[in-house]
């Protein structure tokens, strides 16, 4: 990882020095342990602030809409790169397609899981090989990194951002999991009643802060359906029905567009399980239309196209 970070800084420095890009969006250390923060670098010297570790949890593709007028280089993981490909298919980059600085991802550490594993406030967390050293005021433990991965990372099948213009790190052999999305399988084994209850219980905590929407690179609509007043699709208060409505539609709007990065779930301050919803939709489009988001750069998004031979057994 230290090697990756070093190369990342060198590359960024070079890109900015040669003025190949105006801006590089990457990750930097900041004030909290187990976290990084997005950083916007405009000068070669700024590259020194870049970091790479298992806490680089944001999907930086979400920022590309904000900087559409600039030539942007963006640090991407396997999943983030897929988001960029999907955005490109939706013609989001009419001026300058972003330059992808791909990093082979070692998969990310779930800070919420780590916090639950210790008692007391974590003040420092460092990675050493496969271990995660976590320190607080009165404790110091070392944890096995792989036991604390995000659910979306556990089921990751595309760690290497092959689509990137610059690839940092050695491509890894992708695992093909027996069950691609264990969370989805686990949920499907429940009865319809249990499933709805679980969904409603999770969404009942929702504050409608829309962090899940804003953290997602694919949620870029000028006016989100929740904000529309004519027609008014949905009320703005916290009734269980409206909360469910929001979460059904937010997830469903990702059909064939979600890279499974998990940024929505990580952004949620109320720890609402969200990725199993979009992962299910990913599974559906793969099963029905053989489509995986952001893998083939030319394949049309599944809901914007059709095949006369599509399955239709469900239609009377």
């Amino acid at each position, binding site marked *: 990882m230290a090697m990756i970070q070093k190369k990342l800084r060198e590359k960024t420095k070079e890109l900015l020095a040669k003025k190949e890009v105006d801006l590089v969006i990457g990750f930097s250390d900041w004030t909290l342990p187990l976290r990084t923060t997005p950083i916007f670098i405009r000068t070669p010297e700024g590259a020194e602030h870049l970091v790479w570790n298992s806490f680089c949890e944001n999907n930086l593709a979400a920022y590309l809409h904000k900087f559409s007028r600039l030539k942007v280089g963006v640090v991407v993981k396997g999943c983030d790169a897929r988001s960029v490909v999907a955005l490109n298919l939706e013609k989001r980059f009419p001026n300058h397609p972003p330059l992808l600085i791909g990093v082979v991802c070692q998969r990310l550490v779930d800070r919420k899981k780590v916090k639950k594993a210790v008692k007391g406030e974590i003040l420092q967390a460092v990675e050493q090989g496969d271990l995660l050293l976590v320190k607080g005021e009165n404790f110091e433990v070392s944890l096995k990194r792989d036991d604390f991965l995000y659910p979306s990372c556990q089921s990751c099948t595309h760690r290497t951002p092959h689509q990137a213009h610059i690839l940092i790190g050695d491509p890894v052999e992708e695992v093909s999991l027996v069950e691609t999305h264990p969370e989805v399988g686990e*949920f*499907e084994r429940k009865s*319809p*009643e*249990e*499933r*709805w*209850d*679980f*969904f*409603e219980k999770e969404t009942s905590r929702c504050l409608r802060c829309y962090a899940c929407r804003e953290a997602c690179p694919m949620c870029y609509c000028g006016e989100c*359906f929740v904000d529309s007043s004519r027609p008014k*699709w949905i009320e703005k208060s916290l*009734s269980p*029905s*409206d909360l*469910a*409505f929001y979460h*059904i*539609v937010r*997830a*469903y709007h990702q*059909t*064939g567009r979600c890279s499974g990065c998990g940024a929505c779930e990580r952004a949620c301050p109320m720890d609402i399980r969200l990725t199993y*919803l979009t992962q*299910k*939709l990913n599974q*559906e*489009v793969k099963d*029905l*239309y053989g489509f995986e988001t952001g893998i083939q750069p030319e394949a049309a998004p*599944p*809901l*914007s*196209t*059709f*095949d*006369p031979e*599509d*399955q*239709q057994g*469900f*239609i*009377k």
Partner: protein
Amino acid sequence: MEKDWQPKILAFLCNWCSYAGADLAGTSRVQYSPNIRVIRVPCSGRINPLFILKALQSGVDGVLVSGCHPGDCHYLSGNYAGRRKSATLKRFLEFLGIEQGRVQFSWVSAAEGGKFSQVVDEVTRDIKRLGPLKKFKKSS
């Protein structure tokens, strides 16, 4: 469940085929369940999943979407595009725990008055069996 309960079913019918099919059923005096309320839409491809969700939230017990048979679309491919939305939405709603059968789809041409009545009867029977929709419905 109330004894005299009758389901409310919202039917989105495409203007060119299914709506004409419903018309034909009427003029041919074919009987079908009176539980459906029809909204005519230009094409089954026009159905925004939000329509279906909004309907379920607002108090209907089931939704039927019906359009032209594949290859017959007035707009050439609207029903093909609609079919993908339908397939993914249907699976997704069932995944969430909305009972199978609450949201149904059919192809009914302008000549199929008989099929229309049959579809409506089947959908009504399915939804009667499921009972009133409780999940997701907005209580007021």
